[in-house]
């Protein structure tokens, strides 16, 4: 399982599939996660499928985190996954996504610097209507989290999922903390995806293990580009910190630029990626190597 210290590497905007197979370490990671958030003045939500909320709060208190005051003010909220994701009996992916947008608006309105969310995902293996859309939901959620305000830790108990199921769910997250992550060397999310008014910034590596997450965000960006007023500066996909892209990801990037000509451009590709883009789409590849801010 992933080491509890891996949660210390997360930043607002990260969306991580965090795998575990023992509740002691799961609890330890959750406590670190909430301690870090409270210390930074962030709002912290934990949607538990593992502990009774009161039992979790007592455990966190026993670990030395002062939870009573933040719980009273609403800075810390612990509720069950059943009461959130499955309110109404079924999992409605669109409603859940709207729920995140509303939670972000509330947290921003209350002045929190970020919204930190830990969610146990074990409820998805129980036969609730709608859970077959889980991977779609996780991929869509990246469009919201990429804005850089939410740090989302999705906790998946490896004992509840087949490895094929976990691979599919992982691919909808920009990063996964797998078994052994952080145990021997410092762990960092494989890919960071950030949306800002200028476009998208990608940092890290993109391959088959996380490309569904990227595909979802790029699809939204293409759609946004279509709504740019004529003559507006194009949206930019900044590739300067993308250290690896596999062939399918390069095709995805080239395809996004081709789908919104003049409205969405690739910039800053490193030499290896620039070479790959040139093989895929020679016409646009030269522009992709240009750094984002010409001196």
């Amino acid at each position, binding site marked *: 399982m992933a080491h509890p210290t891996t949660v210390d590497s997360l930043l607002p905007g990260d969306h991580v599939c965090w795998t575990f197979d023992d509740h002691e370490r799961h609890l330890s990671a959750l406590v670190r996660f909430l301690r870090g958030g409270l210390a930074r003045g962030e709002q912290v939500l934990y949607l538990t499928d593992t502990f009774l909320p009161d039992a979790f709060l007592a455990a966190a208190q026993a670990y030395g985190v002062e939870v009573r005051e933040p719980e009273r003010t609403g800075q810390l909220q612990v509720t069950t996954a059943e009461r959130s994701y499955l309110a109404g009996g079924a999992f409605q992916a669109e409603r859940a996504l709207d729920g995140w947008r509303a939670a972000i608006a509330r947290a921003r309105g209350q002045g929190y610097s970020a919204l930190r969310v830990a969610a146990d995902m074990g409820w998805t293996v129980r036969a609730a209507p709608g859970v077959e859309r889980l991977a779609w939901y996780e991929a869509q959620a990246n469009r919201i989290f990429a804005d850089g305000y939410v740090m989302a830790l999705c906790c998946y108990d490896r004992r509840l999922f087949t490895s094929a199921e976990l*691979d599919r769910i992982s*691919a909808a997250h920009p990063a996964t903390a*797998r078994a052994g992550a952080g145990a021997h060397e410092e762990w960092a999310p494989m890919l960071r995806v950030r949306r800002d008014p200028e476009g998208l910034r990608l940092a890290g590596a993109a*391959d*088959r293990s996380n490309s569904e997450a990227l595909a979802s965000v790029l699809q939204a960006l293409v759609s946004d580009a279509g709504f740019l007023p004529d003559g507006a500066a194009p949206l930019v996909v900044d590739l300067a910190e993308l250290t*690896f892209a596999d*062939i399918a990801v390069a095709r995805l990037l080239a395809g996004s630029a081709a789908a919104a000509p003049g409205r969405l451009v690739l910039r800053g590709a490193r030499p290896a990626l620039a070479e790959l883009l040139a*093989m895929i789409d020679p016409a646009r590849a030269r522009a992709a190597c240009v750094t984002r801010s010409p001196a």
Partner: protein
Amino acid sequence: MNPIPGTTAARSGRPLPPPPAAARRRAFETVGELVDVRAFVTAVARSAGLPGLRVERVVLAANEVATNSFEHATGGCEITMWVESGTLVCQIDDDGRLDDGQLGGGRLDDGRLGGDGRLGEAARVPPPGLESRGHGLMLVDEITDLVRRHSHAGGTSTRLHFTLA
């Protein structure tokens, strides 16, 4: 493109000669280990003396073949790397079988190579659906000096050759 050493220029339908005993070898199980695939291949390619951008080509090609293994084979893949006759060789073994779908235009390994072991122009005709995985494997052919694929009872071996000079 550099000439291919004669010892590796046999038609790919034939069994490949076994890797040398001193080859570096590592097994990978899931798509989540692609990051480890890249670290392993990077380390071996660098130690073979390849310059940076060419190391990245080796990594890109190996990553693609390994991705294909994770998606089409059941037991992950094993990567074996060594240097022979001025060539860095990276072999990816899995328990899957090559089929038309994987190679786009129905190009099976017997038709892969011309008599001199070089890629023929036929290998570069794009498949009809650009979204297919086959297109990825064709790009592997583009960035690799020589690709040999061999299907056998136990699965498929893909041997990527990169000249060091």
